[in-house]
């Protein structure tokens, strides 16, 4: 009798307990949830919560099933996907091959669709065979699968509806997600995002307990409150400098980056880059191998994005290091949009920007391919096509050849590797990854309250 009463009391308490919603902040307005047109870091977070891609990427970077239980490489080079039967949209309708095809075709046909997703599907053909969607692309299957993890599937005709582990409810000034009956079995009740662009405000909100997790301003004095723990995770993010003057200035920067930045200025979120490409994507640190060392120029001009105080302090340190070698490194801060235009027009000697790489090694091809969105210097090499055709899987030997090609005449060099510093409520268990907390599988669906 007593046991029954205890069980009843426990059940009642569980029913009456308030939902434990994770309170989070967004640094910028993501705009409306739109699986076709949405394209920003904040929009990716919303899409990862409310949508499912055919495949997912685990925190360790490996592929994992998501909407598709498995996939097969057919003889004609196309990839065929078997969809899970228990994936459903908010109205209860099962996710079908028609939804997959509609999403892909809309992305290919709509000129206002996400540029990132359009690039992923460029040149692809899609179709359906016996209820299974297939896709054929000029890209190697290994690359295509990793990239498809960034393309959540929308409900046919409804670009704002996905089948993800959380249902989206927009509120004035807030983006609210509540748990759904989903195959990833989310264990938290929901998430609520507020727009907090100011890192100082994030710090105050974390200290006052208004946020469950957040990335506060990194200062040596900032200590998390007793209710929070500090979580550091490497990111696929670097501060990259492009050179229109050839590899000569980049060789100087390669030397300067080793000892230019004092540890106190670097803080916990940045460290000097070691190689040419992100080590988080599996690339070993390589040095520039360009032949012939030109003399140190008397003056160099570096354009960079204005507004990030910690980055600007680090660039001042770099300027002082250059001065020791007799080079006057002139820093020209520009508004981000103006810098982007200057990069695209090639109107710079040196230009630096923070780059967030896609979570797969093919992301570095954006530097090298003639139409690559980060090939701001018109870099080209006759041997590129032959090497890229041999890139079938991450870790293939051809990646070494590709890096060698770039190391002989690089057009860009990373100066800083970034990592994110988060304060997380001690009661919340999360899984970090170089993609952040949300963009891997299971992402927020795998979080749990202790």
């Amino acid at each position: 009798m007593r046991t029954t009463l205890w069980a009843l009391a426990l059940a009642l308490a569980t029913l009456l307990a308030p939902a434990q919603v994770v309170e989070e902040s967004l640094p910028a307005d993501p705009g409306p949830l739109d699986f076709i047109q949405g394209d920003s870091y904040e929009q990716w977070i919303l899409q990862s919560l409310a949508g499912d891609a055919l495949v997912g990427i685990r925190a360790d970077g490996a592929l994992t099933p998501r909407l598709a239980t498995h996939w097969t490489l057919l003889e004609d080079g196309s990839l065929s996907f078997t969809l899970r039967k228990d994936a459903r949209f908010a109205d209860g309708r099962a996710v079908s091959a028609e939804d997959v095809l509609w999403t892909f075709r809309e992305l290919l046909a709509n000129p206002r669709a996400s540029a990132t997703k359009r690039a992923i599907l460029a040149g692809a053909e899609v179709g359906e065979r016996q209820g299974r969607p297939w896709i054929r692309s000029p890209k190697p299957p290994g690359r295509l699968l990793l990239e498809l993890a960034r393309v959540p599937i929308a409900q046919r005709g409804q670009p704002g509806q996905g089948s993800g582990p959380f249902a989206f409810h927009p509120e004035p000034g807030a983006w609210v997600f509540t748990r759904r009956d989903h195959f990833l079995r989310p264990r938290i009740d929901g998430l609520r995002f507020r727009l907090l662009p100011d890192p100082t405000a994030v710090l105050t909100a974390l200290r006052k307990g208004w946020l469950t997790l957040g990335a506060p301003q990194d200062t040596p004095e900032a200590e998390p409150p007793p209710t929070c723990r500090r979580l550091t995770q490497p990111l696929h993010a670097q501060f990259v400098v492009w050179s229109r003057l050839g590899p000569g200035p980049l060789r100087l920067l390669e030397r300067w980056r080793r000892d230019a930045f004092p540890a106190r200025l670097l803080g916990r979120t940045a460290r000097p880059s070691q190689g040419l490409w992100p080590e988080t994507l599996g690339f070993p640190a390589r040095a520039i191998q360009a032949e012939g060392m030109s003399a140190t120029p008397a003056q160099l001009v570096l354009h960079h994005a204005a507004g990030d105080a910690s980055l600007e302090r680090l660039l001042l340190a770099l300027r002082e290091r250059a001065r020791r070698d007799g080079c006057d490194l002139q820093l020209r801060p520009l508004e981000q949009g103006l810098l982007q235009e200057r990069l695209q027009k090639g109107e710079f000697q040196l230009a630096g920007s923070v780059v967030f790489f896609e979570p797969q090694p093919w992301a570095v091809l954006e530097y090298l391919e003639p139409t690559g969105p980060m090939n701001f210097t018109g870099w080209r090499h006759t041997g590129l096509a032959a090497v890229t055709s041999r890139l079938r899987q991450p870790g293939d030997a051809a990646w070494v050849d590709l890096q060698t090609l770039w190391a002989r005449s690089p057009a860009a060099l990373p100066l800083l590797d970034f990592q994110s510093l988060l304060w997380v409520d001690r009661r919340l268990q999360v899984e970090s990854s170089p993609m952040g907390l949300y963009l891997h599988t299971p992402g927020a669906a795998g979080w749990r309250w202790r």
Partner: protein
Amino acid sequence: MSRLLQGLGIWGLGLALALTLPGSAWKPAAPPPFPWSALGPAALAVASLAVLAPLLVWLGGPTLASRRSLALLEAPPDLLWAALLLALWPPAWGPPAQTAWLLAFLAAALPGEVRWLAQALPGEHPLPLAWGLRATRRVRRIVLRRLWVRWLAARLPVWLTATLVLERMLGVPGLGTDWLTRVAGRDRRGLAVWVGVLACLWLLTRPWQREAA
């Protein structure tokens, strides 16, 4: 007529600047929807300011313009008011919302606007002070009535867009955030609509700005 043309010329320049804003976004994306829910709080903030500032000037008179305490209140930037409010806001109340934003906005804007209006009042010594308080306040009322529409027309664009710092600090997205998001995303059409609406508001105030002969 020439003043109208001058004004239209300036708004036209603003429109041209919005449509030809240089620069481009790193990843072009669809512009955000207009935050209609922010219109109510913005209207309330503007209405509060439009009533409170003339009322305080009517009570205080032109000497407010040189009052040191007012200058002290006017000096701190929006950032400080927002930080102070955040620091004093009790954690148990939850994050500050629209009401807190309105309070911070009034604290930041009211002293400056009171001084702006007080400076525009004519001197009161020896007349109308010699006629007594009632006559003095009547004169102030007449002057403020003339001044009110011009002041609104001049300051409205600032009030509607310059709340950005408060919005960022307090996490209350509003019209200032919308304006900045469109600039950052190079939504030239959206910015042009903004400039057009502000120009229309200015045009609407024109009939009330005429001086009686």
